[in-house]
């Protein structure tokens, strides 16, 4: 569907702009930064922007996007609204506000002029076609970037330095990579061949960081009132939770059991911790310390026992039962297989000859994979499930959160490869959105 050129005198040439903005558009945070063919990409170039609009009842202020991490210091009772739902940008009104505040606004660190910038945008795999069209239209018609490349986010991992081999030259992808992205909304498993995803084998597990945070919130609200405190519970989860080895899950649970009516047990204090909640006056950031059974919570909260006034939450088996959900979603009744089982499902839909190369190159990325013990547990479970003749190597990227961005930055450095992939604004206006979508899916050549 050809469209007439807009009335703006935009630079509609077929050339690449000098700078590239790489946006890893996640549900929880946007990882954004510039790259160009001359610079080397450093992890510091990547800025993390909270992808939300948050309202604080205490400050009576609404924080949009980057303002949350930059300006807010009281995270109590913060209500969030996220434009990204289930991994896909659904609410463009909100997303536009966040993007404008991040890139167009005068005060932002990443200020740029979209007309002079290339854009590499990531999306979640298996996107509904209507949402892809919406994204393309917003980028070209609203923000008016010069050129644009949209890709599923796991693909960019193939260009980032890998823990398995020496880093390839910019623009050259790794050959075989099985990417496990444990993200905020869900966990995706994508086998990549030469940087291109093998579509029939992509799988998605509906448990992500968000599910874990909400589950922890439910568990903690048995003891303390945290129904409104999304941010604080998320900090608790990041500070305190870990993944126990599969053989020791039951024994860990035994250790923190308080015992029955007839056989009370002493609780094992190596696992149980006291978490001091932040109140943003004296305690700016919560922290954990080993459980002290002699402190009464009520007295401590009122400051009666001589120590500082602190609100304490005792966290025992929640520390490891919450991340256990990734491996056993049936614990809450979800009818899906755990992460190792889903990896197997993905593998089984590939021809057998490809199993070994993928099993030997399993890359774990994503913020929710930073739990201590996660990679070890995943490797052990995978080892148990596949037959002995396969070599299984599981590694976590050096920076699980920024890895996709680093891959995109490296891709952007090679102008030749970039030029083949992007769609310029002029082409979009000439050929229309269906052509653009097929181009990004790899079905149409120039």
């Amino acid at each position, binding site marked *: 569907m050809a469209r007439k050129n*807009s009335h703006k005198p935009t630079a509609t040439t077929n050339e690449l702009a000098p700078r590239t903005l790489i946006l890893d558009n996640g*549900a929880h945070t946007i990882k954004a930064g510039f790259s160009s063919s001359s610079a080397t990409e450093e992890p510091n170039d990547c800025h993390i922007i909270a992808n939300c609009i*948050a*309202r604080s009842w205490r400050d009576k202020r*609404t924080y949009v996007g980057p303002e949350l991490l930059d300006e807010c210091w009281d995270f109590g009772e913060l209500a*969030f*609204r996220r434009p990204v*739902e289930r991994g896909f940008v659904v609410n*463009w009104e909100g997303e536009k506000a966040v993007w404008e505040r991040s890139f167009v*606004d005068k005060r932002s660190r990443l200020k740029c002029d979209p007309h002079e910038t290339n854009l590499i945008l990531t999306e979640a795999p*298996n996107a509904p076609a*209507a949402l*892809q*069209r919406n994204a393309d*239209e*917003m980028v070209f*018609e*609203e923000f008016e970037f010069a050129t644009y490349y949209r890709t599923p986010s796991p693909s960019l991992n193939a260009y980032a330095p890998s823990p398995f081999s020496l880093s390839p030259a910019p623009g*050259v992808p790794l050959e075989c990579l099985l990417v496990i992205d444990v993200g905020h*909304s869900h966990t995706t498993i994508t086998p990549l*061949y030469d940087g291109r*995803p*093998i*579509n*029939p084998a*992509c*799988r998605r597990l*509906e448990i992500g960081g*968000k*599910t874990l945070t*909400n589950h922890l919130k439910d568990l903690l609200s048995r003891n303390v009132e945290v*129904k409104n405190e*999304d941010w604080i519970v998320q900090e608790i989860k990041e500070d305190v939770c870990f993944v126990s080895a599969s053989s020791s899950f039951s024994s860990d649970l035994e250790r923190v*059991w*308080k015992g*029955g009516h007839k056989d009370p047990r002493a609780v094992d204090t190596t696992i149980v911790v006291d978490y001091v909640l932040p109140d943003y006056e004296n305690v700016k950031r919560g922290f954990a310390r080993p459980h002290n059974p002699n402190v009464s919570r009520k007295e401590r909260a009122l400051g009666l026992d001589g120590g500082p006034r602190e609100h304490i939450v005792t966290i*025992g*088996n*929640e520390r490891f039962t919450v991340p256990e959900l990734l491996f*056993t979603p*049936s*614990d*809450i009744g*979800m*009818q*899906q*297989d755990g992460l190792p*089982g889903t990896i197997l*499902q993905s593998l089984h*839909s590939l*021809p057998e000859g*490809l199993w070994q190369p993928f099993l030997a190159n399993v890359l774990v990325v994503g913020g929710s994979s930073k739990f201590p013990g996660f990679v070890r547990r995943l490797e052990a479970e995978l080892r148990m499930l596949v037959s002995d003749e396969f070599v299984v190597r599981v590694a976590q990227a050096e920076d699980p959160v920024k890895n996709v961005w680093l891959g995109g930055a490296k891709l952007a450095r090679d102008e030749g*490869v970039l030029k*083949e992939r992007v769609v310029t604004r002029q082409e979009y206006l000439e050929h229309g959105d*269906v052509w653009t*979508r097929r181009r990004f*899916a*790899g*079905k149409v*050549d120039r």
Partner: protein
Amino acid sequence: MAAGPLRFRTPHIEELPITQSRQAPGFAWVAVGGPPEDPSKNWGTTNRKRARASAGGQTDAQKEALSARQQKEIERKIRDLNNDNSKDVQIPIPKKEGGGGGGAARAGKTQNTKKILASGKTFAHYLDDEEAEIARTGRREGDVEIVAAPVMMQRPSKTPIARRKATEDSSLDSSPAPTLPIHQGMRPPPVRKPSVTSTVDAMDLDQDEEADRSIPSEAEIEALLSAPPLTYNQARAAPPPCSAPPPRKFCEVCGYFGRAKCMKCGAMTCSVLCKDTHDEQRCLKFYA
């Protein structure tokens, strides 16, 4: 007279909860323990445990099958867990300071963007639209391969691809074997393959003997790569295989393994202490 009690063996039917609960009239398969026993035994027994035990018991599968109401409850909990925004909060987007063509810019610059910015669709809407489109025309917007219209799909399917039967012959969800029609004039984008053959040989060393373990040929790999992406529902992970251990239950109060079920509301607790807490505070059937 019947010589013995009539006993119907219902086959094990597992109803997978779908994400939408419709108000449509319908039915649900419920685990049934069988008709009450010979009235001369256990007459007047209000102890359900005794009555159930003497009635011959249920099969393991029937014991594990949840009632429809319990399933709905679980679905609702899971949906809440996967909830993005904070509950019941409407946060309006703050106005930009300094205007700057506020009205026009807010609404979007072109017709398309105006529509997108103003739309209040949620993700569930988009999913439904996509499934409806596939059920109607057999292909997704933007896919060039014209596949045969799917055979007799009354309702868009939400089963993940691993659980679909082979009878649905639409190419969208057939096995990844290269049976997709590839049109002329369509080539995958040029891909750099500097040393594919050499690495392929290196990896093939140990596996030459077994024919089906060999690295697939270039053509097969290309066919795999150019397969269309799965839809959102197809890519969902499937339930665990039947051979997996049954789901674990945890105590509602403290989080340890659950050992006993509350007779009134069905919640699991681990010990007498937790059961007392449950009865006082959390049992749903408190006033019943």
